Structures are given as structure tokens and as C-alpha cells.
């Protein structure tokens, strides 16, 4: 078998807290040696000189929407995989809200086979929590779990019926399956398209109040406490909900939480004069909320940062704000966007990378996300300081709805490897 050595890198491994010079040897798609310090004389079929650039575990993005099956003009597994590879993301977990929904083992198998056939990045599926995401009938969680679904969620739809969610949670506990749900009170957020506040009021847009997230979260946490389910709070966005979460954790409740990169980089003011590329769900919140989320990442309270990749074609975005489709693409810009937390907010690089690598790997039970002997050689090599200007038209996604379009970021992906294979 061929061996590849990557020498003279700055290794960044959140799992072992190592940030320093080092080299890696790759064999049979796995990391066979990790050498800290100066590069030794390694015998390998191919030697790559990293020249001091950062080498980290490839990113794991657990919240990726595509349009396959059902809405291929938006995004296919292939275009999403290409975007992921270009962004240093080596594993994507696609959301079940396709048409038809990923709510049975055959669909899980379909997604994962189609993804694998592309030979790009690892494509994994999240299964639906309820059949056809109807919020009423429990989906085949056990069979989908067996087929390889990594977690179960109704995606952007909140399971409104508390009894249904209670049953889903308690049933899933039998398989130790992870359930994810958006914290939101559906009644307070009905028709909302922006964060409640002076700006939304002035623009005449329906607002989503921050307390809706807190109320939704209180319900979800109470059900977790009762059922003992493994649970992920999907896309927290407000300071108030962070406080609720902290209280529950202080009482000993084990729950994971994710935040989208957009809520770490933007606030409500970015919607400006009805800029629909900033119409997100949950909506962009106040600057105080954004700062609280950044502090939570700094303090290690956030398990996962996601791209919340949600492709929407121009015809769905170039509409009056309230009629525009919510969501933003983010796979390809995930790493440079996350690096703003390092460059602008002074977070340690390892603390930025942890919820992008080891955090999701630990949550989903993947053996990736770490630079260790025997781990899959899913890697990203990047220049953390290189300036880039995002050009949405040049991104690989079929939809170009990037809120980062035209923005200056720092951080450039130089190479991406999946199982030792260079995919970018």
C-alpha cells in the first residue's frame, strides 16, 4: 500500500490539545503515525511539505441540507460534496427534510450509497424523527439507526406535539439514539421572519421573540429529563436560551448543543434594507446574543458549530423579505468564517476547531475528528491568515445564497484529504 507523509506542519488536534509542529504518516487511508516536533526522516511513497501550514482533522458538519432527492436544481449530493471538499469539510451529515423525507432505512441507505459513490467526502444521513416529518407518527428509528443514520431530527420543523416528542425520545433511548430538535415555541414564532426588536418593527417584519426559543428549550429539556434521551439542542441562537441550558446542565442534565456559524458571524442589523440572504431560521439575533454565543464557544459550552448549509436558488431568495426562502449556504466558507472567532474575537485556534471536529465526532460516535494513530486520515491543511474575498458565484454549491458574498475573511483551505485521498 502507498504511504503518504505530511511533514513540517503545525498540527492542531483539539482532542489532545496539541498545537505545535509535527508530521503525519498516512497508510491505508488511516493515520499510521503522529510525530510531534521536528520532522524525522520518514520513508513514504509520497512526501508533502506542509511548510508550516496548519494541519487539522477534517471538519465534520452535522447540519447540511441538499436537494437530493426532490430538489436537485438547488443542490445535489455531488455539488454539496464538492463544496465540502473545497471547504475542508470531510464529513457531512445531510438533513432528512428532502422529498421524499429520509424517514425509512432505504432512504438512509440511498443517501449514504449515493454519497459514497461520489468518492469525495463522507456522506452520512440524519433520519427523520417522525414519518414524513409530520410531527405525529414516529419514524423507524431503530431500523434507520441500524442502516447508519447518525441522529434523528425533523430538521427545521419543531415537533410541536409534546406527546409525540416525548414518545420519540423515550423510544430512541432504547437504541441510545441521538434526537435533535430546534428549541422554539411554534405559536410565538408563527409567521416570524426576523428577530423581534426595533429593527423588525420599523421594517414592518413579523418578529420572532427571543423568549420563544427559551420556552421551547424548557419544554425539550423537561422531556429529556423525564425520558433520559440523548439529545442535541439544534441551533441555539439567544442568550436567554444559553442561560436556560446552563441551569439544566448545572443540575446534571447531559445535553449537547449546536450553533450555526451564521449566528456567530452576523446579527440582526445585517438584514439592513431587506437583504434576503440574511433571512435565516432561526433569524439573526441581537449583537448581545451573538456575543453571548461567542463567549459560550470560548468557554467550551458549545459542542458543535454547523454551517447550517441551506441552499436556496436565486428565484427563492430574490423576493420580498417575508416571502424569501430562509437559509444560507455555508459549507465552503465554514472554516474561514469560524476563523473570524480566532482573528477577531481572540479565541484559541483549538477552541475554534474543537466544535468543528472532535465535538461532533464524539457526539455522533465517529472515530474521525482526531489526529491519532488508527484514526481515518480525514484532514484539512489550511493557511489561517491568508486573506480571501468570498465570491458566491465561484463557490461549488449549485445555489449561491451566501451571506458572506463579498466579505473579506482570513483563512484559506490548501488541501483536503478523505481517508488519505486528496479530494481538494
Amino acid at each position: 500500500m502507498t504511504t503518504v507523509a505530511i511533514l513540517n506542519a503545525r498540527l492542531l488536534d483539539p482532542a489532545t490539545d496539541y498545537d505545535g509542529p509535527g508530521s503525519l504518516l498516512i497508510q491505508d487511508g488511516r493515520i499510521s503515525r503522529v510525530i510531534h516536533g521536528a520532522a524525522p526522516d520518514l520513508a513514504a511513497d509520497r512526501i508533502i511539505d506542509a511548510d508550516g501550514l496548519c494541519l487539522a482533522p477534517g471538519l465534520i458538519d452535522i447540519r447540511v441540507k441538499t436537494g437530493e432527492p426532490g430538489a436537485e436544481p438547488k443542490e445535489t449530493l455531488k455539488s454539496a460534496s464538492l463544496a465540502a471538499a473545497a471547504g475542508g469539510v470531510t464529513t457531512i451529515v445531510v438533513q432528512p427534510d428532502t422529498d421524499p423525507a429520509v424517514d425509512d432505512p432505504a432512504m438512509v441507505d440511498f443517501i449514504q450509497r449515493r454519497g459514497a459513490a461520489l468518492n469525495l467526502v463522507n456522506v452520512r444521513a440524519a433520519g427523520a424523527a417522525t414519518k414524513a416529518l409530520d410531527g405525529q407518527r414516529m419514524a423507524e428509528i431503530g431500523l434507520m439507526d441500524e442502516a447508519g443514520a447518525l441522529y434523528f431530527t425533523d430538521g427545521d420543523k419543531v415537533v410541536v406535539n409534546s406527546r409525540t416528542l416525548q414518545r420519540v425520545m423515550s423510544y430512541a433511548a432504547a437504541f441510545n439514539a441521538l434526537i435533535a430538535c430546534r428549541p422554539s415555541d411554534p405559536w410565538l414564532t408563527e409567521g416570524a421572519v426576523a428577530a423581534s426588536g426595533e429593527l423588525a418593527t420599523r421594517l414592518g417584519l413579523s418578529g420572532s421573540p427571543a423568549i420563544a426559543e427559551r420556552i421551547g428549550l424548557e419544554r425539550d429539556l423537561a422531556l429529556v429529563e423525564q425520558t433520559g434521551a440523548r439529545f442535541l439542542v439544534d441551533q441555539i441562537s439567544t442568550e436567554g436560551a444559553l442561560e436556560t441550558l446552563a441551569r439544566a446542565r448545572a443540575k446534571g442534565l447531559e445535553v449537547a448543543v449546536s450553533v450555526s456559524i451564521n449566528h456567530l458571524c452576523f446579527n440582526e442589523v445585517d438584514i439592513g434594507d431587506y437583504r434576503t440572504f440574511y433571512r435565516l431560521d432561526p433569524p439573526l439575533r441581537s449583537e448581545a446574543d451573538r456575543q453571548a454565543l461567542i463567549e459560550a464557544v470560548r468557554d467550551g459550552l458549545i459542542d458543535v458549530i454547523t454551517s447550517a448549509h441551506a441552499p436556496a436558488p436565486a428565484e427563492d431568495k430574490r423576493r420580498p423579505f417575508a416571502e424569501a426562502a430562509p437559509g444560507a449556504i455555508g459549507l465552503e466558507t465554514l472554516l474561514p468564517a469560524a476563523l473570524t472567532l480566532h482573528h477577531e474575537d481572540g479565541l484559541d485556534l483549538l477552541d475554534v476547531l474543537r466544535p468543528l471536529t472532535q465535538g461532533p465526532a464524539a457526539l455522533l460516535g465517529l472515530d474521525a475528528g482526531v489526529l491519532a494513530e488508527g484514526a481515518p486520515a480525514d484532514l484539512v491543511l489550511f493557511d489561517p491568515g491568508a486573506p480571501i474575498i468570498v465570491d458566491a458565484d465561484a463557490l461549488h454549491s449549485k445555489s449561491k445564497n451566501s451571506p458572506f458574498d463579498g466579505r473579506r475573511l482570513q483563512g484559506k483551505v490548501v488541501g483536503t484529504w478523505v481517508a488519505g485521498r486528496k479530494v481538494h
Partner: protein
Amino acid sequence: MTQAAPVTDQTIRERLVPFPKAHFLAASDLNPFVTPQLLDLGDAFVDFNRQSSKALDLLHGRTVVNLFFENSTRTSSSFEIAAKRLGADVVTMPVASSSVKKGETLIDTAVTLNAMKPDILVIRHSASGAAELLSQKVGCAVVNAGDGRHEHPTQALLDLLSLHRAFGDVTSLTVAICGDITHSRVARSNVALLQMMGARVRLIGPPTLVPGDADRWGCEVFHDMREGLQGCDVVMMLRLQLERMAGALVPSTREYFRFWGLDREKLAWAKPGAKVMHPGPMNRGVEIDSDVADDLSVSLIQDQVEMGVAARMAVLASLSARWGDAR
């Protein structure tokens, strides 16, 4: 009738002022310097509209397209009459029965219309920001005739013209805007323009119909009519959408009328001689009592309709004054 000299193209041209922006999308497109000039122009059009001969050629050869995605007889006819009196060719698009209903997006409609080279597009749409979006995609001037709950700037200008004619100086006025503030584009435009001109604005309504952060608009907020109306020169009532009644935001129309509907008793709480306004159409017996609405000694409601045509003529004429002869 006044014995003044007849208003002609020449007298209008002498008082014509170029509109400060290429489009009229929000009250903030006006400024404290140009607004009095527009009111003066509006005055001229009021005199003109009272003449028996009502044909000008300021917009001769120009095309004005009325694009009303929401049904509105009074606003669309007000714009249509204004444009016709200025000599423009007016097309009122029957949007309700057009391809817009077949899934064509607003942008597609805009691009299609733009290719027909209109000079002014007047748009009303149920989505906030629709006029702004349209203005980015067309080469002609866009006038916002109401977008969702965002703005209805010509309504604010016509209300200001009505106040200007009733009171003269508007800077010392205290105006109470009453009713459903949350869902009202009329309220937003009026707050912006009245404050720009130095008037004091109060907002009065039940807490479910006044935005929680309205105090940050620089207005005083009241939930009690007696308290709020004290010392007000003007009481501006807003239309209450009946679908928002029946338990959703207020318990019933009769309860609403009891506490927030304007009748003689409540009007007496305002300053003696206070005037009553309403953008129309009115729900009689819900937000306003006919007894008050139809009393011409206190009600400016009919004036508002008349001023509507004049104010819109002023807007269309001043937009055209930006174009010069090259266009």
C-alpha cells in the same frame, strides 16, 4: 371659489421642485427642506383640482403604471387621477388576474414591465420591502403605494398637506395616532414624516396592537385614550382590520369601540378644536363613530381624500422634474 388666477402648466413649473430621491419608497426619502416645497406644490395642485379645467401636460407622453397586488380602490384611483391630470398615460395592471397569480415572482413581473419602458411604477404589495426590491430591478422611478406593514409614504404626505392647510404651521402640533399601530404602514410613515417636520407624535392603542419597542421611535406611548389624548391637536385614527378582532388581538369589536373607538366623549379629552383624521376606509362603529367622522367642523377625513390627489400629483410631478430633457 377663490378669485385667484387660474393654475396653469406655467404656474406649476415655477413652483416645481425636483424630488430628492429617484424613488419614493419611504417617508425618510423626504427631508425637512424639500417637504415644505412639496406642500407648496401640493397647495397649487389643490387650487388646480378645484378648477373646471383639469388638464396639464407636465407628464405628457410619459407612462405611469399602477401595479396593485393588493386590492385598493381609493389609492389606485387617486394615483390614476393624479397621473391623468398631469397628462400621463396611465395603465392600471389587473394584477389579481395576471400571471402573478400563476407563480410569477415579483422580480419577473418587474423585469417584464421594465422592458415596456414605463416612466413611473406605482406599487402596492402585501410584503414589507416589496417596493424597495422592485426599485432595485427597474430603470424607472418607483412610488411605494403601501408595502406590507412597512410604509405608505404618499399617505403621510397627504396627511401632512391636510394638516398644513388646516393648521398652517405643523411644527407645534401634537398628533395622536390611535389604534392598530403594529400592523399599520400608515402609522410608520406618519411617525417618520411628522417627527421630521417637528411635530410631537403619540401612539395610543391596546398593548397587543402597539409594538413593544415603539417608544424607541421617539413617540410617547399610551394605552389609555383619556391620558393619551390630553392636549392633542390632532387625533389620527387607524383602520382596524376586522380579521384581527374576534379574540386574536382584541376580544371583540364592541369592547374595542368602548375603550379605543373615537366618539364625542373621547374626542372631548383632546384639545378644544382638535381635528380628526382617518386614512380610510373606515369601520364605522369600530374605531370611529359616524357622528364624529361626518362632522365637517372636526373631521378632516374628506379633505384627506382631496389632498390625496394633490399630494400624489406633487410627488409625480417632482419625480419628473428630476429627469430633465435628456430622458
